[in-house]
């Protein structure tokens, strides 16, 4: 305590001394020191390194577009997955949901020529939401761990696509050019699909940060039993998290069809683990209660970008996956270290006061 503070009459017992910094300065510090900033820094370093080596990685029109376009699908999945993981659940079925709605998109265009593109987009979203609702109801009312349920629905949903599609494949020629243009169209050089993903990200991020429902998701993830005792509608919130994750995976399926033009029955196989990996890299605790969708989104962009940057940096394609694995592990080790340090600081400041 400073000398002036001891002379002043004690009016209240503050746990922590009020910060001498201005609120704006404090907000700036919080952002810079945040977990998201560290992962963003890694992303910037990767892009910068690749650009220094091959300037066209960043500066050519096509590369700039791919840089934003390619991560859009994983970004959508990661946002939904982050919300589910924050509630201390997990959704492994997103890859199968993506496959189902991607095939549905193609099917709609083939069976109903001239169908409105928006209608197809909404259909994908709604079918995804329905599949998510099934997950959520089984988890919420079946009182069964989500890992088991969504592993089951991963197989069921994928089985439905496989049975439905068989060896059929949706080709670019089956879909109207207006729809495929959405996959490549840009507004102010920013791809439309990336803008869609960004709007979703901002909406979900704002909701989680400010809305009561969003804060309740964190409370549920920190301690489900306490949330129940506190009177939160745990079941309803968890179900809505799964509905959101399903809906975003459904939307990602439509985006997949627009982006790649061809859809076979194995579209999106195995992408669920990438989505979980993006969330973990982005600093969301796997047992819920902390982390942000901003981090998960940056994690998704980093995962995709690193795969494109490594060959430029002279690392052969084949070693990319090993590096991604090492990245995931270092991200969780980093979280561990940061958490331990924060806990130590809190204990010290308590003991000093």
């Amino acid at each position, binding site marked *: 305590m400073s000398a002036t503070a001891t002379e002043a009459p004690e009016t209240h017992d503050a746990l922590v001394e009020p910060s001498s910094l201005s609120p704006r300065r404090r907000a700036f510090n919080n952002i810079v020191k945040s977990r998201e900033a560290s992962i963003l820094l890694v992303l910037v370093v990767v892009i910068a390194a690749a650009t220094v080596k091959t300037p066209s990685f960043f500066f050519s029109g096509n590369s700039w577009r791919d840089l934003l376009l390619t991560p859009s699908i994983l970004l959508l999945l990661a946002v939904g997955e982050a919300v589910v*993981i924050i*509630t*201390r*659940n*997990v959704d*492994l079925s997103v890859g199968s949901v993506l496959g189902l709605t991607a095939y549905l998109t193609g099917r709609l265009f083939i069976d109903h020529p001239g169908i409105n593109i928006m209608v197809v987009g909404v259909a994908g979203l709604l079918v995804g939401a329905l599949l998510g609702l099934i997950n959520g109801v*089984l*988890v*919420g009312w*079946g*009182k*069964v*761990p*989500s*890992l*088991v*349920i969504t*592993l*089951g*629905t*991963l*197989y*069921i*949903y*994928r*089985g*439905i696509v*496989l*049975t439905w599609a*068989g060896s059929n494949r949706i080709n670019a020629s089956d879909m109207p050019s207006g729809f495929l243009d959405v996959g490549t169209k840009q507004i102010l050089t920013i791809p439309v699909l990336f803008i869609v993903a960004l709007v979703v990200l901002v909406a979900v991020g704002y909701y989680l940060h400010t809305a009561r429902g969003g804060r309740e998701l964190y409370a549920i993830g920190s301690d*489900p039993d306490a949330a*129940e005792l506190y009177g939160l509608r745990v*079941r309803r919130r*968890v179900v809505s998290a799964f509905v959101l994750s399903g809906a975003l995976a459904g939307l990602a399926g439509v985006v997949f069809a627009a982006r790649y033009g061809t859809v076979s*029955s194995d579209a999106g*196989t*195995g992408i669920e*683990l990438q989505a979980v*990996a993006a969330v*973990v890299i982005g600093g969301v*605790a*796997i*047992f*819920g*209660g902390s982390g942000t969708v901003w981090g998960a989104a940056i994690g998704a962009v980093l995962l995709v970008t690193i795969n494109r940057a490594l060959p430029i940096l002279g690392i*052969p394609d*084949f*070693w*990319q*996956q*090993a*590096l*991604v*694995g*090492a990245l*995931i*592990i270092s991200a*969780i*080790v980093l979280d*561990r270290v940061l958490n331990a340090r924060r806990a130590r600081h809190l204990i010290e400041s308590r003991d000093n006061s």
Partner: protein
Amino acid sequence: MTTRTYLEYSRPLWRRLLLNREAAVIAVLVIVVLYALMNVQYFNSKLTLTFLVLDVAPILLIALPMTLVIVTGEIDLSVASVVGLSSVLVGILHQGGMSIPLAAVIALIAGLVCGAVNGYLVAFVGLPSLAVTIGTLALFRGLAVGLLGTKAVTDFPQGWTDLAKAQLGGTGLPLITLPFLVLAVLFALLLQFSAFGRGIYDIGLNTEAAVFSGVDVRRTKLILFMLTGLVSAFAGVFYTLRFGSARGDNATGLELQVIAAVLLGGVSIFGGRGKLAGVIAGVLLIGVISSALRLQGVTVNIINIIIGFLLVASVVSTSVLAWVSDVAARRTRQGTRPPQTPVGVGTQER
């Protein structure tokens, strides 16, 4: 009133033996096998049995140590990548002129090291196994793909590839049954008939209580992850020789099949509950259904749906039964169960 022993308070022995998850899975397996024997053409042939066992052998093998890991409340998603890595190592070392047995031993050691990496990060650094093994899933698979690229090693000596497919006498059972049975007995003894195994259940039920009752939680988890790596590597050697091909992407996605089978066999994802008999029946159930459907000309696709439904139904039925007995108990005013809140991946402390 005369004193009654603890056992007299519990359900009668026959009910405890017959009315549990393991018995239910075994019963379903027996019913499906009988149905298939009577109604599916060629199901009773020896060749069907051979291919059935060959197909599920990697899952059967890996499910053994995976059961122990899941009983402690942890999970290992990296097993399929260890299979791939061990397959690639056998291929590369064979290409370099090494004999198959020596290459296999080196692959097994590599599997042990992979398991030790998982175990160290989970048990000693204290990281959640779900996150760690998603990381090592990518890492080990990446090493496998990095070492061999998109190439494949296929020139394995005929003698060894024949051995992997050889039958035990005229029984129709493939040779891999022998090492599997030995491992199954060893793991059953370890889990269900040893102090170490009681410790495994203790950790799954309540880690803190296990620590206070003298269980070395860290050492136990490390050993279990190492065993999982070792057995996965063995499954990788078998996989390579059976298909006569070493590729970086061998057995991709097998981890989810193994976990689905283990959970189907009645092991709780929260840990503390489950028996090997149920797990083995669960793997065989999936194998028998796939094989019978294929013989009837049903496309392989429908098998996915059936596995998924079995998995969901098997867990949901448990909570429905619990709910029914809960309502019954409330009606007779004999007390209620504490409310269960749905939680996701595990109840371990962060």
